[in-house]
């Protein structure tokens, strides 16, 4: 190999190294950027719900705000089902379950156990329990059980998780019956 060939190769190598260093997005950074772009609206909404939670001083209010969050994630999950994106279905189900189990269900149960049965707030707890149980059942039913996506293990798991989620809410709040004093009316 003569000196000229060696010089050309060396110059080429240096040029390639310089070009690679100039490129702002490597594989990992590019991947992160794509995720940031895709999730930006969802991130902004989660942040909004998180800030709202800071103002909620009752279990019922926290349950209500957490339910808004689960509704937002459910919307994202339905979009993933529509797009037949198995990974996104699994990811959104995972996030939904986290919020459901760690934020919504504990606060709703606390509200059910602490709010006086004949109060207006208790009626709201009962209604929220009923609707949330129905919504999560509908959400589970919306995940395909067959077809190219429904047969994948992670989608089956997602569906199973959602089917079991209603149990986290515990027993339906009992009907308190007529309030004391109503009999006299």
């Amino acid at each position, binding site marked *: 190999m003569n000196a000229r060939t060696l010089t050309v190769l060396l110059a080429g190598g240096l040029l390639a190294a310089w070009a690679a260093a100039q490129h702002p997005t490597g594989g990992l950074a590019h991947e992160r950027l794509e995720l940031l772009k*895709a999730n930006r609206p969802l991130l902004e909404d989660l942040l909004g719900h*998180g800030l709202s939670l800071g103002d909620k001083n009752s279990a019922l209010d926290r349950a209500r705000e957490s339910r808004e*969050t689960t509704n937002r994630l459910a919307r994202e999950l339905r979009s993933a089902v529509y797009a037949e994106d198995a990974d996104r279905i699994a990811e959104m189900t995972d996030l939904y379950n986290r919020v459901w189990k760690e*934020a919504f269900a504990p606060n709703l149960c606390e509200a059910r156990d602490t709010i006086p049965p004949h109060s207006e707030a208790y009626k709201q707890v009962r209604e929220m329990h009923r609707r949330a149980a129905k919504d999560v059942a509908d959400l589970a039913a919306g995940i395909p059980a067959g077809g*190219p996506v429904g047969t994948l293990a992670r989608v089956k798991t997602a569906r199973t998780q959602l089917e079991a989620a209603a149990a986290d809410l515990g027993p339906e709040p009992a009907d308190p019956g007529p309030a004391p004093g109503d009999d006299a009316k």
Partner: protein
Amino acid sequence: MTCDVVRTRLLALPDAARPTDDLLTHLAACAACRAVQAEAARLDAVLAALPVPSSEARKNTFLDSLAADGPVIRSIPVLPSTLAGSGAFRPVGSWLKRLDLRWVGGVAAAAALTVGGVWYANRPKPVQQEVAAKPRQELLKKYTDHHNALAKARTAPARLTTYTRWSDDIQAEACSMSNAAGQVEMNSLATQYERMVADGVEKQAKQVAEQPMTVDDRQKVLRDAIAKLTAAETEARRLEPDARTDARTALKRIADAATAGRKTLTLIAEARGAP
């Protein structure tokens, strides 16, 4: 030789009127087979007498119409080969000559359509394989975790801690992505950071100040938040000058929000009474 064998061979003869010697022996003794031979010979004669419409003129007209648009290969040259020269394909060749090409084309087209239709109906469907899952955004999971921590938090100090961590995660994401993210993403992160500091950290810090506690306890509660805001401010200002134009504005906003938050929290921490 049985009658069945004789009749089969009679039908296979090119000319049923001229049977071979061994067949003649049987025919001489079997009236039934003679009747079959007579019928076969009569059919051969009838078929040979049938008029065959000449298609030569029509074929030539059709070929000429094709050739009118340009050069056309009228015949495929046949290379001499020992097999071809041996005459082994002669019967096939003569059979092909007798075929009507229009029928052959039609049958071929029908076969192609049938095969295509069957294939289309049974074509392999795209199936998502059980491959490794695509990467998930860690930031999204962190947001959810912070959200859930806030749903459990019952006191201002607990909320302050969570909002401080949350703002820290946003600032870290913005700084690490400042060389890659576009203006929309960077502006979004800057807005989120501003909101988190103003409506989360500062708001809860003010609630901490309203709670009955000693100055030392209050400073202890606020110390971590002030340290994180200071670090965020330093990091954003360090990156700002070398960042792309798109990112520079966002980093400046983050640094300014961190500065404002730090000042507010420092004032609350150093206040002797309720601010």
